[in-house]
């Protein structure tokens, strides 16, 4: 890409394609990699481990990603290990370009109390666009993938209460800060996140008042979804006792002073003796009850299994092998919930390595969820985009708009939930390939040149050379790029 062209796409010169097209999208586009160098693609008829790893553990293979990975060591196996190690220390990866691109979203860095100065729809638009752009641009791809994993695990729907204002801070200070950190820290941050206190009614869980019943909404989801899992061995009594431990923690609403301030109100705390999962809580524990409770559930063996199962479902298979779950759960426990260590075990496990090394015919693959699919379209085509609503509307149509899943279990991971989205996936592929999405631009010609021809571009997108059926389809006269992005192979990771 020429430098003139790049400046134009950045919008720095005050001229922009969107404006020329007469649309109301923001007058800027964030360029893709900004590279115009050649890049390599797989050359075999079978999918290969590098491509499979990148498809699974990132939001899509950008032109050049494969070359960057292979440069890390002398053999592909060693390079894969080195890449994983690098991704698990995200601080070692320079991400200034991505952060710079996001600087235009004012709301992202605002202290939590200041977020109320913004209109709800502005906050959602900025957070959604930033989420898409980070997934598309960040070099810390595994971190981004984990951000999405925890966003679902600690799901918050912005349509409830004041979550529209507070989710921005939750995303920054809970999910992003701890995505590869320690699970106990993540859990505690979530438990006392203003957005979570709204979303699961923790803020109105109190002793006394109108009648003597605690609000058990958060306590239930804490055990069922965030830690032990529904078959984790807790009882209805444990839920009610946990709710008593959590009573009195609240968050100040936007209508008063200290808005979004999280506080412990001792007079609203049930300070009697409690018993959760067989552990006694002495009376008079006050604000310390929550610490005991969270430490108890974070370290519970059922929590390790629950988190391990979900991670294996995300990274290995919808129905993951029990051996992998055991191994990952064991590392989760022995590392006291160190998320990076847990992932190191998962990505190094025999099950994971067998999966990425399996030949295409033996490999079920996972269905990309719609968000992954959309971002992988952007990444693999090195698109420039402002990630405005013309693009993110496709996520809404496919039922996968960020921060808008109503129930606390988060968007489902398994393929079965997403099979009804094919028609929209094809529409997206065709619109992107045809440059018909305002605010998002690709250069199919440049992409083909950089790949070194049509066949190599096909291999870049399919993860292998096209088979006979694909070759015939590519010669049919239909837009080849649309066809590749809509193909069954590209729907998988």
């Amino acid at each position, binding site marked *: 890409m020429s430098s003139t062209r790049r400046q134009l796409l950045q919008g720095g010169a005050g001229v922009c394609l969107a404006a020329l097209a007469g649309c109301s999208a923001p007058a800027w586009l964030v360029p893709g990699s900004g590279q115009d160098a050649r890049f390599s693609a797989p050359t075999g008829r079978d999918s290969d481990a590098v491509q499979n790893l990148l498809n699974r553990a990132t939001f899509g293979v950008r032109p050049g990603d494969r070359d960057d990975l292979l440069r890390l060591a002398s053999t592909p196996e060693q390079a894969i290990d080195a890449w994983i190690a690098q991704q698990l220390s995200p601080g070692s990866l320079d991400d200034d370009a991505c952060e710079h691109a996001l600087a235009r979203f004012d709301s992202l860095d605002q202290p939590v109390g200041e977020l109320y100065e913004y209109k709800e729809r502005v906050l959602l638009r900025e957070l959604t666009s930033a989420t898409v752009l980070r997934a598309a641009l960040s070099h810390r791809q595994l971190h981004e993938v984990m951000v999405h994993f925890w966003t679902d695990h600690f799901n918050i729907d912005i349509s409830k209460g004041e979550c529209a204002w507070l989710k921005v801070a939750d995303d920054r200070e809970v999910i992003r800060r701890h995505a590869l950190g320690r699970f106990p820290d993540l859990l505690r941050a979530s438990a006392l996140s203003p957005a979570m206190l709204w979303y699961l009614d923790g803020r109105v869980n109190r002793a006394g008042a109108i009648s003597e019943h605690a609000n058990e909404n958060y306590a239930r989801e804490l055990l069922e979804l965030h830690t032990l899992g529904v078959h984790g061995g807790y009882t209805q009594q444990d839920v009610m006792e946990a709710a008593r431990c959590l009573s009195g923690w609240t968050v100040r609403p936007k209508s008063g002073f200290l808005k979004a301030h999280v506080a412990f109100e001792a007079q609203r705390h049930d300070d009697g003796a409690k018993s959760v999962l067989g552990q006694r809580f002495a009376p008079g524990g006050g604000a310390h009850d929550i610490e005991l409770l969270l430490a108890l559930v974070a370290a519970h063996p059922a929590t390790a299994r629950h988190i391990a199962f979900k991670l294996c479902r995300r990274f290995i298979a919808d129905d993951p092998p029990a051996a992998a779950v055991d191994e990952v759960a064991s590392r989760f426990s022995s590392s006291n919930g160190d998320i990076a260590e847990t992932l190191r075990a998962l990505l190094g496990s025999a099950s994971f390595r067998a999966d990425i090394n399996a030949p295409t015919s033996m490999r079920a693959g996972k269905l990309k969820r719609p968000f992954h699919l959309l971002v992988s379209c952007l990444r693999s085509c090195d698109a420039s985009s402002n990630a405005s609503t013309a693009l993110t509307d496709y996520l809404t149509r496919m039922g996968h708009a960020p921060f808008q899943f109503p129930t606390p279990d988060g968007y489902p991971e398994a393929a079965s939930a997403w099979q*009804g989205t*094919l028609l*929209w996936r094809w529409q997206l592929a065709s619109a992107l390939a045809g440059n018909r999405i305002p605010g998002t631009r690709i250069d199919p010609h440049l992409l083909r040149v950089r790949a070194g021809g049509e066949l190599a571009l096909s291999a870049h997108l399919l993860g292998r050379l096209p088979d006979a059926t694909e070759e015939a389809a590519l010669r049919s006269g239909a837009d080849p790029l649309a066809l590749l992005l809509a193909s069954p192979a590209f729907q998988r990771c």
Partner: protein
Amino acid sequence: MADAVLSAGQDIDRTLVVVFLRGGADGLSLVPPVGDDGYHRARPHLAVPTAKALRLDELFSLHPSLHEMHELYQQGTLAVVHAAGSEDESRSHFEAQDLMEHGGADVAGGWIGRWLRSRQADDARIGGTLSAISLGDELQESLRGSPTATALRALAQLDRSSEAQLLHAQLAALYRPDALLAEAAASALAAATRIATLQATAYQPRPSARYAERKDGDLAVAFSRDLSRVAQLIKARAGLVVACIDLGNWDSHFIQEQLLEPRMRALSQGLGAFANDLGELLASTTVVVMSEFGRRVRENASLGTDHGRGGAMFVLGGGTPGGMHCDWPGLHDSALDGPGDLPVVHNYRDVLAAVLARHGSRDPGSVFPDHPQRPLHV
């Protein structure tokens, strides 16, 4: 191919519409037992006052927001079941929804999926693109295992240009050998074609059908729009066997009247308009309204209610005898379940089985293999 078999002239073609109230709808607000003193004692701030409630019988009333449904009840086309629900004791939304949508704990597929499979040989419509549709963003679990099932999304946004059609033709070839996605792709392709045909004509509901308008609020408009789309497909004889609609967010832990009132309005107005719009076709169309559980009998400290057990179900049209159905257990402490919940007296599957029997199933019990039947006359 089932798509070719349109049902023009076949008056016996029936449609089932399943409305799922997600989040655990408070049956004691929908159908308050105002004749039971225990109800007023348990809910000093939340009980519907007897004078405002819409009377069904000595014991039960409908919430004042449900006046269209009250009219349907008086006409004998709406049956009300109370203390209905499932065996689920987890009081978890997801466990309870899952159990109910699968129609049992130890069964494969969703209950609608199993039902459609069992009827495939007898009903030529089943397997057609628009035979089983979801009005939501994704397919409901109850549809799992259906011969086909389609999420009927904003139809107008589909690209039907000649380029798109060329692309679709090639995609058909690419997806055909795909074990995971072949069926979904065939369904998507057929739906695109069928939808384009339906799009060519704008739907005009019967003028007297008062579907929600902008002034009635977004929620009511969305639910009414879903129902009017179903009415369009029924009247167009597009081969619709079953449609699933979600009406969400009934999880009323906190100041519940604010949450429930607009939802009840949306439900009642939508069902009233739908019944009116269908006219005589209501006799061959059944609407079942269900939720994963009811809520705790006693109100909580934040003017809401927590997860409970027994709740309300409704059956509209399709030949239901109407009426109020409940062996009321009472609300005294010894009658309540667990932490203080209305027990489940009527299993949801006994309601569904009665409906399926009118929708051509010779042995509706086979759809619910792990449930000993106690049929209800609803």
